[in-house]
């Protein structure tokens, strides 16, 4: 194994992904250190979501390698284990289990995948429900909650698996405007607590607050990457300038 000090926690090397003839990721390389907060933006179809979906193997890339904690991510048992133990994911459409109550949604992973005792899992679930401030709704079904509450439950569900890194795939894009803040607050609080995260979002105010590194993607490539300060004030590429001017105009 390589030296843990120099080895980044997540190492993406020359990863390409095609959907039939469409090139969604074009030889992307990226390092993510533990504790880092990465925010990815870019126009739709630029490969932002595909990149984080490749990191936890919801999509299989054709070329290149992804290492997490020094372990190659692939279909082998060890490649799956490293995902199980390290990576949590929050989806645009929440993807809560509609037939289970909130508390059951949270307990399912720990009990079935981690063989945790029910009582222990319940305690763990309560801790995270409190953290996302919905501990009073635990016996309701997802459909009885607002979109913002559902997304916060989804975040708590991912946290119950105690991941080292959280992936957010446009977590506020499916929400009504007045519910975006409550979800971003939770993510921000999580970032402050030191969680490593990669977040695809169009919320630039949030990005400016939270990100250590901003990343702009277009046509499956990382076009621009840097700390938010220089990223927002002095973007180098024209494509990024145009994008920022368009989404920051209003």
């Amino acid at each position, binding site marked *: 194994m390589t030296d843990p000090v120099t080895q980044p926690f997540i190492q993406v090397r020359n990863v390409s992904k095609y959907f039939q003839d469409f090139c969604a990721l074009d030889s992307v390389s990226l390092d993510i250190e533990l504790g880092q907060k990465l925010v990815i933006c870019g126009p739709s179809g630029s490969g932002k979501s595909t990149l984080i979906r490749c990191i936890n193997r919801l999509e299989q890339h054709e070329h290149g390698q992804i290492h997490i904690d020094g372990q190659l991510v692939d279909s082998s048992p060890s490649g799956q284990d490293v995902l199980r133990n390290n990576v949590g994911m929050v989806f645009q459409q929440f993807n809560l289990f509609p037939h289970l109550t909130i508390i059951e949604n949270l307990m399912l992973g720990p009990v079935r995948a981690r063989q945790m005792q029910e009582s222990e899992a319940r305690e763990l679930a309560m801790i995270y429900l409190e953290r996302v401030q919905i501990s009073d709704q635990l016996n309701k079904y997802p459909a009885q909650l607002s979109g913002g509450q559902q997304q916060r439950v989804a975040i708590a569900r*991912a946290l119950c698996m105690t991941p080292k890194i959280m992936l957010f795939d446009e977590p506020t894009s499916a929400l009504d405007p007045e519910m975006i803040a409550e979800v971003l607050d939770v993510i921000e609080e999580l970032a402050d607590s030191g969680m490593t995260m990669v977040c695809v979002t169009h919320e630039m105010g949030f990005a400016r607050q939270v990100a250590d590194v901003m990343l702009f993607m277009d046509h499956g490539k990382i076009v621009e990457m840097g700390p938010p300060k220089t990223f927002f004030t002095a973007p180098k590429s024209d494509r990024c300038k145009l994008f920022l001017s368009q989404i920051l105009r209003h």
Partner: protein
Amino acid sequence: MLLNALLIRFLSPSFWLRLAGVLCFAGLGGCSDNWGWYVVNPATESGRQNLFFLIDGLYFTIGLSVTAILISICVGLLVALPGISSRRAPKVINRVYVELVRAIPILVLILWVYYGLPQVASISISVFWAGVLALAISDSAFQAEIFRAGIQSIDRGQYEAARSISLSYRDTMRFVILPQAIKRILPALGNQLVYMLKMSSLVSVIGMQELTRRANELVVTEYRPLEIYTVLVLEYLVVILIVSAGVRWLERRLETS
């Protein structure tokens, strides 16, 4: 005013109940020249005996249908799962089974299982189990299609969410996909049970003492096909309406939970 009063009268359930009562009475006793309701008249000893003889067939009709549908649901699920695989070989197995079994008429399958299977496999098979086997095999192809459609109707995000919390394939199916799929296919499963109850009448050809066979046997001795088959129709009607109501009740219950 008059129209209103008439309407209320016609729409009230009690009016229709009374009308039905009058018609029944006319049917039973009124036209005694053409109708021979005495064969199933519960007021007489022989009528009662005949009626019990007919109704007793319910035991087998229901036993046959329920056993067959339980087996066919299990087999159908087992056949459906390879059908939703992303690989080719399991899909082919699913298609071949469904297409082959669906192409065999139930009556033919019943005859083949009862008369043919004992010779091929050199086993002895009772009428009941031959009937169950034939009905279950035949229905399993339809169950497989119903399950496949139900499972495929579940959003891909549910699989992805299950994967993101590290659930295995088995746990994903058991705790996430199937509970939602079954809720959605419940009306279709109810339909299959109704279908099965009706198709079980075909097992009468190999001598199963279910509703239809009993009616046939009584017709031979009593020579009153019209009355006896009318009772038979009513028997199926009552059973199936009860089953339908039961399925709807179950649907409503699952809806609220």
